[in-house]
């Protein structure tokens, strides 16, 4: 189901609030941008990620890919639970370069 209330809502919002309907908070990607990408035919989590950067932030998608999955389901009918799983690459946390530099370059990742 499309969120038809979003447009009504923008009428009552001031300029700053208008852009605050983000799907991906890390990368500041709006609901409208994700919806557009899905309409363009990006219908897997990884496609949407590549097209919009939603899911490419520091949290590696844990706070947004679920919503992206639900949007894909709503717009295409593909059930979210049949979507390709998330992928992730190190580092799992924001770590400082200083501490990583301490790793021996021979054995380091």
């Amino acid at each position, binding site marked *: 189901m499309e969120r038809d209330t979003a447009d009504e809502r923008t009428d009552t919002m001031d300029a700053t609030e208008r852009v605050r*309907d983000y799907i991906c908070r890390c990368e500041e990607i709006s609901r409208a941008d994700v919806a557009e990408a899905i309409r363009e035919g990006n219908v897997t989590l990884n496609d949407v990620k590549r097209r919009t950067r939603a899911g490419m932030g520091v949290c590696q998608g844990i*706070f947004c890919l679920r919503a992206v999955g639900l949007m894909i389901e709503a717009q295409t009918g593909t059930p979210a639970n049949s979507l390709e*799983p*998330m992928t992730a690459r190190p580092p799992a946390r924001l770590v400082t370069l200083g501490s990583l*530099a301490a790793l021996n370059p021979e054995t380091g*990742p």
Partner: protein
Amino acid sequence: MRQVDVAVVGGGPAGIAAAIASAEIGASTILIDEHANIGGQLRWRIGLTLKDTGGLDVEPGPGLVVADALAGRLSQFDNLTILTGTVAWGLFDDNVIGISNDSEADEIKPDSVILATGSTDIALPFPGWTLPGVMTARAAQTFMHVHRVLPGRTWVILGDGEEADELQGDLERAGVDVIARSANPDDIRASGTNRLTHVEIGADVYEADALAIALGRQPDAELALHAQAKSAFVSDLGGFTVHRDESGRTSEPGVFIAGDAAGIGSLGEVIAEGRLAGLSAAGASATSLDAARKTLEEISSDRRKNAIANLWTIGTGV
């Protein structure tokens, strides 16, 4: 690079149970936790009570008391090293784990690794969810219970499940007001200029300085994904879940997963699972494995059992 038999990532109930099980049968074991104190969810979900001990030798009771008792148990093993304040940030070929604390980095090379990395709160977006003052239930619990500060005084809760009830209890205990609850992320809107000041639920407008997202928890198994373990979306287990058997064996050799990281469960379930994974990873005898399996079988809900049994048949995997 440190060599050990078993490395356990995550010092919550499942990780502790795994580390104790592994150390008990003589395996050199290392337990890594990013927090200053081990105990995991028992330290911030202070309303929890441990009823089923999942085969772990500890008195049932309030979570915090259990956490301290378990920390005591852990310190008794000579073959068990505990690294707190340490982040395991990557899992590489041959199960090499990259770890770092504030000042230095190292690597651990275990024969087996048990991922007991717990959960992350489920969040679903709604307009204004990025405003300061909007936070996950876990942030609220962590700041109130671990750091002892109130993130706000007048609260709205998004969520209507167990987690939302739990948080409401926590907030009331802390002496602040919960003025509204909404079950539906499609019907809530947060606003304010630089921080949250108002929350709209449907046509109602509330003045609030804090909004907690309490929609439940999802497995956080990022390190398993580094190892390219198969996973799939399973709503009964909280979200993307790594394929594994009841002992926690994933699709990748030597990589085990247990507890909430392997599917959101009750305290008893995650402890029993952690214990079985610890014994399996450390190569316990068939007799002890059978006993641990039986305990887990008795404690597990049918819903969890079915979801885990079906894991290998669903999802596209890799």
